[in-house]
């Protein structure tokens, strides 16, 4: 008996992808991909942007139909049955839940409404709601995903919205949960709690497919990792046998060196904020107050914080979208330009927005036009009110080359590019003006390792050149790696800055959740 128990019986397979292939015109997005997910298992799916992860998940979830291959899902008795292709309904019925990277929530409805949407019977909806409320309370308690059920989703932060998405899937009693970059917006403590939740859920038998590019968390959370590159599954590791370096190399196809911050003495003072206050408003909800901050040349100042603590208002201020309500801001010793974004750009300030899709680019316009959104009025790009189209195209070609952007050319609609390529172009648009002060707001959110390394390299290069950079980020690794000094934003106040070399992630986490006021 003891002998028999020592041989672990592998858990039954709940999901199997067999030789999935999908072609879009010239592009082979998926090529003969096999994947197996067992009951109670957390499997990581890794890959760069464009590696085929999204296509594979879309096929699994019925948004696309594979050219060949099959998706098999275990039914309630455990037998594997082919999933009817091309039907999200069938996927839902088979117990597959998905939390997308881009949320599918209705902003004007309450959290509860969003979660129960589509599950409510016409008969006795009120009764159903009370049951739903109870069930959700249980789920929230056990999963550690607190959200105000009656608040409209539109008033929630990005982080909270994601929690709603996870709850929405859990509420539907899924047997397979697919999470697309779930930790991108969480604090370290929240991420920890999510991992605990996922471990607990998997222990209860939930099979989880975890799409991520943060290698350390993948190694920590998952036993197995499957790596996609250029549409093919190039490796499958047991995480116990693989180092993050090996996995990263499998993803990118070559060794990735993360750029390092060299020690440079800070230069002259560029930006001084004293007692600055901005009331809450349309640009980001929470107001900010008592902000004191100094930024020097050759320096990156990191702003940490859980989303929704005033970073958005702070970024709107530095982007020129709102004016300070009180206090003083000086830029290189002169008063802060109050004429909006255009005045800031003219004063040598470069700004990249937090939400690159809604604030950064105009998805329907071609790359070339997007790249002159801030400079189209200059002599270089217009003459007598007419755009100089030849120069626009030539300019776009240069930036595409310099920033190694994968695209069809300057005439392609920018909305069709991957997040990494869009961010490269946005950064290029800002950096080519050689700004002295740069606002980088979540510059690498949702990007893959290769793109992150590239963006970090460019920011560090700007620092070397003499720029001062304010880096607002929720990725603490990024803050620690790039920043000279770090301050934490909590409930609209900014802590004193701390040298990045003398602070731990744990300390930052405590400041971010307001459990301590100052770093020890």
């Amino acid at each position, binding site marked *: 008996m003891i002998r028999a128990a020592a041989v672990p019986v592998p858990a039954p397979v709940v999901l199997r992808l067999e030789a999935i292939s999908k072609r879009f*015109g010239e592009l082979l997005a998926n090529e003969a991909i096999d994947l197996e997910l067992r009951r109670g298992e957390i499997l990581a799916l890794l890959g760069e942007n464009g590696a085929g992860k999204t296509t594979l998940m879309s096929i699994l979830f019925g948004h696309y139909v594979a050219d060949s291959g099959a998706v098999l899902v275990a039914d309630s008795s455990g037998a594997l049955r082919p999933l009817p292709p*091309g*039907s999200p309904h069938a996927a839902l019925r088979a117990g597959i839940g998905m939390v997308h990277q881009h949320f599918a929530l209705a902003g004007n409805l309450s959290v509860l409404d969003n979660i129960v949407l589509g599950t409510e019977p016409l008969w006795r909806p009120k009764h159903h709601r009370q049951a739903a409320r109870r069930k959700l309370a249980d789920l929230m308690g056990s999963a550690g995903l607190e959200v105000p059920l009656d608040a409209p989703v539109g008033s929630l932060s990005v982080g909270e919205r994601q929690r709603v998405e996870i709850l929405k899937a859990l509420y539907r009693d899924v047997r397979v949960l697919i999470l697309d970059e779930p930790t991108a917006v969480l604090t370290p403590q929240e991420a920890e709690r999510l991992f605990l939740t996922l471990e607990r859920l998997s222990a209860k038998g939930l099979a989880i497919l975890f799409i991520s590019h943060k290698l350390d968390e993948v190694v920590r959370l998952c036993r197995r990792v499957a790596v996609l590159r250029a549409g093919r599954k190039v490796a499958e590791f047991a995480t116990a046998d693989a180092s993050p370096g090996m996995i990263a190399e499998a993803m990118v196809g070559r060794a990735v060196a993360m750029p390092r911050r060299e020690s440079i003495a800070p230069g002259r003072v560029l930006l001084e904020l004293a007692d600055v206050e901005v009331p809450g408003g349309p640009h980001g909800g929470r107001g900010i107050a008592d902000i004191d901050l100094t930024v020097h040349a050759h320096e990156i100042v990191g702003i940490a914080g859980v989303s929704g603590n005033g970073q958005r208002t702070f970024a709107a201020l530095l*982007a*020129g*979208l709102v004016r300070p309500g009180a206090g003083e801001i000086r830029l290189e010793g002169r008063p802060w330009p109050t004429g*909006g*974004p*255009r005045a*800031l*750009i003219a004063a040598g300030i470069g*700004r990249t*927005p937090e939400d690159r899709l*809604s*604030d*950064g*680019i*105009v*998805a*329907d*316009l071609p790359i070339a*036009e997007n790249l002159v*959104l*801030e400079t*189209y*009025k200059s002599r270089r790009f*217009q003459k007598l*009110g*007419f*755009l100089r*189209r030849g120069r626009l195209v030539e300019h776009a070609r240069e930036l595409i080359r310099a920033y190694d952007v994968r695209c069809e050319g300057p005439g392609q609609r920018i909305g*069709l590019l991957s997040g990494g390529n869009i961010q490269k172009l946005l950064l290029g648009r800002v950096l080519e003006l050689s700004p002295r002060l740069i606002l980088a707001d979540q510059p690498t959110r949702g990007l893959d390792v290769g793109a992150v390394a590239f963006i970090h390299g460019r920011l560090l290069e700007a620092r070397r050149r003499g720029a001062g950079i304010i880096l607002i980020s929720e990725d603490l690794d990024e803050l620690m790696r790039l920043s000279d000094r770090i301050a934490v934003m909590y409930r609209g106040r900014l802590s004193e800055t701390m040298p990045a070399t003398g602070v731990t992630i744990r300390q930052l986490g405590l400041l971010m959740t307001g459990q301590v006021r100052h770093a020890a």
Partner: protein
Amino acid sequence: MRLEVRAHPPRWLVVASPVAAILLAMALAAIPLALAGADVLAAYRQMAVASLGSPFALTETLTRATPLILTGLAAAVAFRARLWNIGAEGQLYLGAVVAVALGSGALSLAPPVLIPLALAASALAGALFMLGPTWLKLRLGVDEVVTTLLLNFVALLFVGMMLEGPMKDPMSLGWPQSAPMVDAATLPRLIGRTRLHAGFLVALSAAALIWLYMERTVWGFETRTVGSNARAAGFAGMPVARVFLRTGLISGALAGLAGAGEVMGLKGYLTQDLSPGFGYSGIVVAMLAQLDPLGVVLAAIFVAGVFVGADSMSRTVGVPSYIADLVVALSLLAMLLAGLVTRYRLRR
């Protein structure tokens, strides 16, 4: 089921789908035509002959297309910026009122002076009529759909008041119509005995200019940017409010020109039924053309052809005139469907 954007619509589909749309509309309209006791084939033959079967029929179609091109452009320009101007009908009437005020004897100037002056003044009137709704939208967030739509009725009542009062033609035997335009304010005919007038050329040049404006100029670039993503435009420092204001003025001006063209080129005087809904049909024209200024010309000619053909059909074949309206409506719906099928792919 869902729609997926086609990156590159196949060429055969671009050609085949409008043809299929016309056939579909004809098949559907055949039912009420047959119920009305008409010879369906004869009815369609009459429709085709009357709209493009002869040089004269063709000029009739182009004459009808003239105001539609202008109101279509008015809608296309505004919609590109996501400024929902539903008030082209009212702006058209206001343009017509101003054209009549200047061109029915008040000024005695030579045609080369009077005609451009009257056209410019009408455009200005249409533009100014758009100023209020745009300003309210920018300042107080008032929905411009509501304000522009309601101003149509204000404009129509204003025309009624003018025609019963100060503008009434004393020679009109009591009919509410204005004094006739003087010869110096009348747009010249383009072809001998047809009704096609120089307003058609004005409309064509307007389409070309608007295309140039949208695709080639800095202001057009701003309009397209604001229309596609006003937030990104604001972040980049574009003057979003100014773009809306400018777009509203241009849109109103185009609709005002449409009204001037009708009184100065076709009718010769103003009545309260100057426009059979050209302002509203302009919206359909703009949608058919997918807001492309050059496409507006083709779409307007198509819509005008259906109007002209259906009118003639109901007169000669002797079916009730509402069947003509039905044919028009079905053709437009089928055509919009064809545009959708071309641009999107249906996915299960």
